[in-house]
């Protein structure tokens, strides 16, 4: 099944019709998407800054990570649900958009970066001099700023 077929299938659903017919539904779901992404971005940024060794968070990097993980995960689930709904408003347009593909590629890279950190570097947090967690935090910050930028560019190029 090709991307085009999937996009056409989504465009033919009643949710797609409801979203395009409504004058308020897309904006309402989009607002929740923005709120959710600010939670994800804000919590991840604080963890990344703590890994680098700066920022307003108190406690060890491990403590900051555990304190903020519910906000990251909760925000991410909410952003994923609302984002999935938003796709139905223009599935064919999104499927052909470069920045849409770029955003999801960067999201995948951010996921891989988080996984690599968790598997290989998280245990090294006790060693304050280790460079690996700092690099991981810096890469994560750069990726998330890029995700927001590509996401914003979708609106201008679709």
């Amino acid at each position, binding site marked *: 099944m090709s991307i085009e077929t999937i996009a056409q299938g989504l465009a033919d659903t009643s949710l797609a019709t409801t979203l395009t017919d409504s004058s308020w539904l897309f904006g309402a779901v989009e*607002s929740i998407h*923005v*709120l959710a992404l*600010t*939670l994800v971005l804000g919590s991840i*940024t604080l963890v990344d800054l703590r890994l680098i060794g700066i920022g*307003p968070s108190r406690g060890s990097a491990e403590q900051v990570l555990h*304190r903020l993980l519910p906000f990251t995960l909760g925000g991410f689930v909410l952003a994923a649900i609302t984002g999935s709904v938003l796709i139905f408003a223009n599935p064919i347009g999104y499927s052909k958009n470069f920045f849409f593909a770029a955003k999801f590629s960067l999201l995948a890279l951010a996921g891989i970066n988080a996984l690599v950190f968790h598997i290989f570097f998280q245990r090294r947090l006790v060693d304050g001099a280790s460079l690996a967690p700092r690099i991981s935090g810096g890469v994560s910050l750069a990726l998330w*700023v890029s995700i927001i930028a590509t996401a914003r560019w979708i609106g201008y190029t679709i």
Partner: protein
Amino acid sequence: MSVLTDFSTWLAASPLPPLVTSHDWLVPAIQVVHILSIAAVVIASVHINLRALNVIERDVALGDVADRFLPVLWAALGVLALTGVLLIASEPNRAIFRYVFWVKLVLATLAALATAGQPRFALSGGAQGAAAVSSGQKVLAVLALVLWALTIYAGRWIAYADPWAGAPS
């Protein structure tokens, strides 16, 4: 509303609009900085208000959490104001002639005051212990978080709202 019309006319004639519209990428780039700053406001407010609700950092005083996160909140609000002015300059006849833009500003002001007021509330209520927070503070904290959510909602709505009757086109 002639003050607003005069302001938008003055802004349109200023050097700002040609500057921010000189490159196609500039307005979306400013919007990205605006969104990053919203994230900073949200996470700073979440820390202060959820501490007041005894959800996070219960082992430290609210004043300590506020001391660390209020500077983040004010700095981010400063960047939001600056990027907001630049975004208005990119389309001087747009946001300021929509009711929802002014609703957003009022909501943001109330939310900032409610969040920044938390540590003062703690002192006047005598709740200075590590975990002690008065019930009034908890109400204020919930109110502040709801106000921030509504601010984001109103902000996003500027893109969809119609200008009021008689606004310059």
